[in-house]
Every structure is written in structure tokens, then in C-alpha cells.
């Protein structure tokens, strides 16, 4: 469906996490799984099937591309990186989430709840 940018559906969490993992630097599959686990404090442990379904989808949507391939211990290791489109997409989603979080945070502040700087 060709709606305007404001009407896109919110990104699913695994997609967002994979793009965020690749926003830092090009990574291979296992590194993405580890990075996502670290980011979420162990809450999200991506499994291979889910990860590669996401990678394949992101590739065909043009949000990521192959950075390079290496052979490590006689196994293929493929590194992925964000494309310009992927960067735009991640930026848009981050803005959306930040805006919503800012509104919630302000309202909670008014109720007397304060937030620390870093996550617990």
C-alpha cells in the first residue's frame, strides 16, 4: 500500500532491534543476536529462524545489504550493514518512539515520578 510516511505501521520490535544493532557497525548474524541481547538486558534472545526471516525481509526491502563475507573456522560468515534507506527508516521510528516516550515521561513527571538518566 502506498500511503504517506506518516501512515506507515509502527516497526515490529525485532526489526527495530536488528536495525539498531546494525546502526553501530556492520555485524554478522551471531553478533546481531549478542548485541540485541546486550541492548535489552537479556530480555530479547533472537533465535536463528526469526533473525534470518528478519534479515531476508530487510534485505528485500532495501533496508540492509551485505557488507562483506569471511570464512571463519571453515564456515561462511556474512556481515550486514544499514543502507541509506535503512538509516532513514530507523531514524523515523526512533523519532516516533522518542516523541511518545517524551510525552509519557512528562506526564509521569507531573504525577511525581522522576526518571534516572541510565536504565536500571
Amino acid at each position, binding site marked *: 500500500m502506498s500511503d504517506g510516511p506518516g501512515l506507515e505501521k509502527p516497526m515490529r520490535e525485532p526489526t527495530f532491534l536488528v536495525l539498531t544493532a546494525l546502526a553501530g557497525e556492520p555485524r554478522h*548474524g551471531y553478533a546481531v*543476536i549478542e548485541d540485541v541481547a546486550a541492548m535489552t538486558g537479556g530480555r530479547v534472545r533472537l*533465535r536463528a529462524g526469526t533473525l*534470518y526471516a528478519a534479515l*531476508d525481509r530487510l534485505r528485500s526491502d532495501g533496508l540492509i545489504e551485505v557488507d562483506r563475507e569471511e570464512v571463519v573456522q571453515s*564456515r561462511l560468515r*556474512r556481515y550486514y550493514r544499514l543502507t541509506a534507506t535503512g538509516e532513514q527508516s530507523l531514524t523515523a521510528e526512533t523519532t516516533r518512539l522518542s516523541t511518545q516516550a517524551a510525552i509519557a515521561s512528562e506526564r509521569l513527571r507531573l504525577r511525581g515520578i522522576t526518571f534516572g538518566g541510565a536504565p536500571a
Partner: protein
Amino acid sequence: MRTKEDRYRLLLELYPADFRREYADEMIGVLMADSGPVRRHAASLLGGAVTARLKQRLDGPQWRRAAFVAELFGAILLCAVALRRFAMATAITLFEPAYNRPPFDDLNLVRVVAWALVVVATLTGLRALSVAGALAGLAVEIAAPSRFYAESPVTLLGVFWIVMSAAVVLIAATVSARGPRPRGWLLVTAAGVVLAANGFSARSPYSTYAFTITRAILLGAVQWAALILIPAAAFWVAAGLNVRLERSRQAVPADSPAAAA
């Protein structure tokens, strides 16, 4: 004895060949790097294989158009079948008053309205309305034979194709993309009119009851499973064949007469 890698390779066999060619090697690397048991990833590999094969079948925008056609033609058919029951009830009231059956069934009225609503909503592109109508229609298609299931389970088997059609129309309604009226819609509507009108030829409210049923044999788990799985498998196979057909058609040059079909 099968190694861990062998077991992962076996699971990866479930994926379509294209996907395996592209990702199998690196997936093995990722899987073997995890020291956990095979079953940790097994469920996601199964799900991933089904997703990959489903993506293969739902290739390109044409499938939404196919859903539109299924939704429209399906709703016309189901409306005609429901109207036919009205015709039957009317015929029996007029020609066989001795049976003294109530002429109109409330459930059937809901059914007729629901499917008619789906036809109209499909043509006008109102998805919420067509989904709501299909939901109501499916509910009645299930409820109607359920009234007699305990006495006569075979009635459910007789109308199960209607229940399946209603489910197909519902699913199609959620994913269809509206387009111009498909070729043959007039023919399908005419067939629906003939089908409904045929109901007037009914003279007896009972189809065939040669004997009294003393103990109904209800459907077992295997039969229920078959009723659900066989249509799903038929869809899977048909969709797979259709993808192959479409791919071979795309091999035809764009400006040839065959491509215009």
C-alpha cells in the same frame, strides 16, 4: 549417531531451496556458535521455514487481487446458497402446508444479509464492513448446522464446504486489494440467481431419512483434523502450483499475445 550440525542441517532442509542456497551456510555458523541445545532454535527454524515458503507463494501484488476475486465470487455464491434456503422454505410453505414449518429461519436471514453486505462492501472497497459481514456470515454458517450436530452429525459434513468457503471469504476480505470487477462476475451472479431460484423446486423439508437414527456417531479428533488440514493443504499446494505457473508466464515476453491473457 547424529551430530548437532546434522540435526540443524535436517531442520534447514525444511526451508525452500532458494533460501537455503543463500543463507544455510551462515545460519549453520550462527547455530553452531550457540552452545545451547538444538531444541532452542528448532521452533524458530520451523516457523522460519513456513514463513519462507509462504512468502514464496504470496509473491508480488497479484495475490491480493486473487483474494479480491475469491472474496467477491465467494460472497456471491454464499449469498445465493442462503437465498436458496429462503426459496425452499417459501416453496414448502406454499406447496406443502401439511408440513407446517415456519417459513423463515432467523439465522438464515442474518446469513443472507451478511453475505449480501460482503458483496456490496467488496465492490465499494469498505474493508471493515466486508470483514464484519464475513465474520457474521461465518458465525451463522457454523451455528446453523451445529443445531443438529448432536442428532445428525452428517449434516455438518454435508455443509462443511460452505463453512470452508465462508472462512476463505473472511480471510480474503482481510487481505484483498480492491480492483475493477473481475471478468466473469456477470456469469457468476447469473449462476447464483439460478441456484437460488432452484430452491423453489423443493417440496419436502427432509432430504433423505430412510431410517431413524438411534445413536449419532459424532466426529472424532482425526476427522476434525482432516476437515481442517485438508483444505489448508489444498490451498498450500494450489498456491505453490500457481506460483510456478505465474513464473513460467513471466518468462513469456511482455509484448507477445500470450502475455495479454
